[in-house]
């Protein structure tokens, strides 16, 4: 009975795939796939490629190339990122059967605290549930003492290896195109030929340079510098000071666009976005009264345990695909400022389903993978507009007061009437597309309340308060 079902499923798969003819570039039994980079994009791609191939009855050989060892703390095992798994990604992964155990999630986040000079207000997740995960991409900051938890990237890599992929540890130092197929060479090894290569590296990776001069039409993404610093506080102090909230700061500090403090295990992670972030800007933020109000009285100024200034993509890659080649995650197209891991999942899965169900030619990727990238890019354009509006609020005290007043008043109301809270929640947590946030901002009810609060704020300037 079961073999009959398998046979009919396999026949259907063959029928579906043979529509393109025998010369089409497609993956068959025994096809070899190289995945360069085993961060979230590489792991999601490998996982869903093998999952989909299994459903279709195709036996693939997948090699994942990764130079980092995720079991090691600090830069040797870290992919340098704020480490937030968004609410929408947590839900999608749960529906996919990919769970994030408490050993991987440093802290479940159920709310965020918005800090401005005019006051602080706590906004809870719509279902009052821990649905945002704060994770370490590697095994934690330099000098980490804890060993009872796992790296997020390491956890995903484990799932991929369990699915049947093989890990090739080391740096890829040569990529060549021979006879229409790509050859990948590990440093000190021999070149190996693959039917498909998926590139899932960061935007600064030297691997991207290996594709220069191949006339593929690929242009890497444009990036901007961010700043991440880890502070050791101890688990108890982290819980006491930050709770299970992500702390978001909207401050009128020149060159600073966005700042967040995230609780994680024994540490708190500081993430800053802005122009030319240097130590002076970091100190100016850390010494601001808003940060002091958030962290005191338990906090005493201390040096960070670990810090980095990774670049993030602000403009997606041009033509992130070619025959038998696809660029996914950060080196392809990602989401502006927020939910980079969520974008890695979306692009990786789109590329994997295209490769298994449609084929691996440039035309296949253009038709079935590129639309997902384009949707993200178009949404980023709306995101840029929304961040321009946020910057205007940051610069004007009456606007900050109006946003604060409106948000505080909404905490007593039902979920669907919390218009400003939901806009802020989705904007800062990356839980919904920027387009949806923008459309919500355009509703008459939103503007009616905002204008009323602006008028009141202009007429009655007040003192800073804190509403938890």
């Amino acid at each position, binding site marked *: 009975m079961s073999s009959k079902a398998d046979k009919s499923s396999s026949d259907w798969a063959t029928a579906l795939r043979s529509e393109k003819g025998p010369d089409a570039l497609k993956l068959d039994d025994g096809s070899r796939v190289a995945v360069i980079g085993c961060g979230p994009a590489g792991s999601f791609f490998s996982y*869903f490629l093998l999952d*989909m191939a299994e*459903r279709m009855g195709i036996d693939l050989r997948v090699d994942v190339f990764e130079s980092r060892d995720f079991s090691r703390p600090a830069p040797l095992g870290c992919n340098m990122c704020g480490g937030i798994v968004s*609410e*929408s990604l*947590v*839900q*999608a992964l*749960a*529906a*996919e*059967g990919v*769970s*994030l155990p*408490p*050993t*991987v*999630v*440093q*802290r*479940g986040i159920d709310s965020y605290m918005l800090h401005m000079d005019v006051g602080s207000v706590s906004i809870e997740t*719509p*279902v*009052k*549930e*821990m*649905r945002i*995960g704060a994770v370490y991409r590697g095994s934690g900051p330099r000098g980490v003492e804890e060993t009872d*938890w796992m790296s997020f990237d390491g956890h995903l890599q484990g799932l991929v290896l369990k699915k049947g992929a093989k890990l090739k540890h080391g740096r890829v130092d040569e990529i060549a195109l021979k006879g229409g197929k790509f050859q990948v060479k590990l440093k000190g090894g021999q070149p190996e030929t693959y039917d498909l290569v998926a590139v899932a590296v960061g935007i600064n990776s030297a691997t991207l340079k290996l594709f220069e001069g191949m006339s593929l039409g690929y242009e890497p993404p444009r990036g901007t510098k961010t700043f991440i610093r880890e502070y050791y506080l101890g*688990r108890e102090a982290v*819980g006491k000071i930050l709770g*299970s909230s992500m702390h978001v700061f909207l401050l009128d500090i020149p060159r600073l666009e966005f700042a967040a403090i995230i609780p994680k*295990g024994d540490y708190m992670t500081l993430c800053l976005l802005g122009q030319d972030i240097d130590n002076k800007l970091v100190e100016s933020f850390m010494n601001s009264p808003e940060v002091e109000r958030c962290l005191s009285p338990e906090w005493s100024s201390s040096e960070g345990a670990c810090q980095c200034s990774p670049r993030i993509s602000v403009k997606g890659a041009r033509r992130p695909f070619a025959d038998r080649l696809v660029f996914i995650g950060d080196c392809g197209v990602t989401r502006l400022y927020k939910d980079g891991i969520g974008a890695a999942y*979306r692009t990786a*899965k*789109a590329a994997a*389903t295209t490769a298994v169900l449609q084929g691996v030619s440039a035309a296949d990727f253009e038709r079935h993978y590129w639309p*997902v990238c384009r*949707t993200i890019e178009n949404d980023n354009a709306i995101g840029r507009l929304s961040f321009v509006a946020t910057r205007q609020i940051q610069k004007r005290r009456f606007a900050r007061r109006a946003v604060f007043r409106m948000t505080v008043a909404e905490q007593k109301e039902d979920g669907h009437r919390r218009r400003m809270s939901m806009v802020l929640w989705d904007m800062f947590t990356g839980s919904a597309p920027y387009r949806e946030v923008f459309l919500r901002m355009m509703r008459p009810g939103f503007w009616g309340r905002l204008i009323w609060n602006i008028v009141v704020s202009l007429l009655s300037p007040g003192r800073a308060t804190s509403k938890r």
Partner: protein
Amino acid sequence: MDSGALGKVYDDGEVIVKHGDVGDSMYVIQEGEVEVLVEEGGKEVRLRVLGEGEFLGEMAIFEREVRSATVRALGKARLLTVDRKNLLRRIHEDPSLAFRLLETMSRRIRGLTNEVVKLKGGK
């Protein structure tokens, strides 16, 4: 509750989903077990027990009907809520996201078919 545990913890016997309520979400069990119950002639009948990784309340994703059964925690259980709107948006972009849901529903139909066969055979 572990500070890194995602979802919400329900105590033993706590109702997660109530028969007749309007639902707009489904749940994925992260830890523990739950029991699915229906009321028949004033008595509760246990339909099935679900464990880690399994879905419940998935019918609310696709139809706007009231909950068809009551679900209670069997011991301490941790569940993650998945919103209808979020899931449908994702499925629209990536229909393969619905594969596991379809597999679950298919398995349940197979189970129900077996039950019907048993009941009819018993007559």
